[in-house]
């Protein structure tokens, strides 16, 4: 039986390592409760995880941003670094940009997906994986992504099982 394959973007991986809530429909949606099982299944090798190189850039930038005085320093720098190191230990297969860039550009050109989102979408298409995103973005990312790929899922819509 084929293994389950996933691409989880930074909006999913960040709350798997840092408690995050999302203001959503008048409530505080607990993203971490939905995201942690994804990191857990990657760590346990129950799923095969792929990602564009962009994930490491985005994760480190946003993780350390939580410790930045400019952003309120919600978390101590050492804690942020420790969580980054835990994230980097996950057995994720990073797909080189050279394998994705044509697809990224096609998605950007055809549907107006942002370049940053395009890396994740292209990675999911190239590896025939589910694409997991935290929630629908203001720019209509999910709708646009679903034009290209039929397995796009949101933490706000479903539990990862």
């Amino acid at each position, binding site marked *: 039986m084929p293994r389950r394959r996933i691409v989880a973007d930074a909006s999913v991986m960040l709350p798997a390592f*840092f408690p*995050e809530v999302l203001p959503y429909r008048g409530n505080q949606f607990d993203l*971490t409760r939905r995201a942690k099982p994804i990191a857990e299944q990657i760590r346990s090798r129950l799923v095969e995880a792929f990602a564009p190189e962009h994930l490491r850039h985005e994760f480190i930038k946003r993780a350390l941003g939580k410790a930045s005085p400019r952003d309120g320093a919600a978390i101590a720098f050492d804690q942020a670094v420790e969580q980054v190191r835990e994230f980097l230990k996950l057995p994720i297969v990073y797909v080189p940009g050279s394998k994705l860039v044509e697809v990224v550009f096609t998605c950007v050109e055809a549907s107006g997906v942002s370049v940053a989102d395009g890396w994740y979408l292209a990675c999911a298409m190239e590896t025939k994986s589910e694409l997991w995103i935290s929630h629908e*973005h203001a720019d209509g990312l999910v709708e646009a992504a679903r034009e290209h790929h039929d397995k796009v899922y949101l933490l706000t819509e479903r539990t990862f099982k």
Partner: protein
Amino acid sequence: MAIIRTDLDKLPDANAVEVDSDAPDNMQAIHEIDDWAAEHGFARVSEYWLRQRKVNGRRVFRGICYRLSEDEVKAIGEESAHAARVTDSLPTTIHQVDEDRK
């Protein structure tokens, strides 16, 4: 296309094996070797570019897999417990969307 060779038949107790796939491209070979590993209690190492070799005149993609042995599973469990403890100890923040993804 299929898995065409593994070391496992020679070394049933091996903790690491090489697995060859005659898939037409690197990605399909990754999928085939991943599937083989999962079915046999192994995990493929997280490399993207598989080695290519000629075997009997045919190109094959060669991946390395390690057994999910008791100590591997135990280590994963300990890492998971540690990660959960640390994450739960951190303060909750509001989810931010990166500027270049808006």
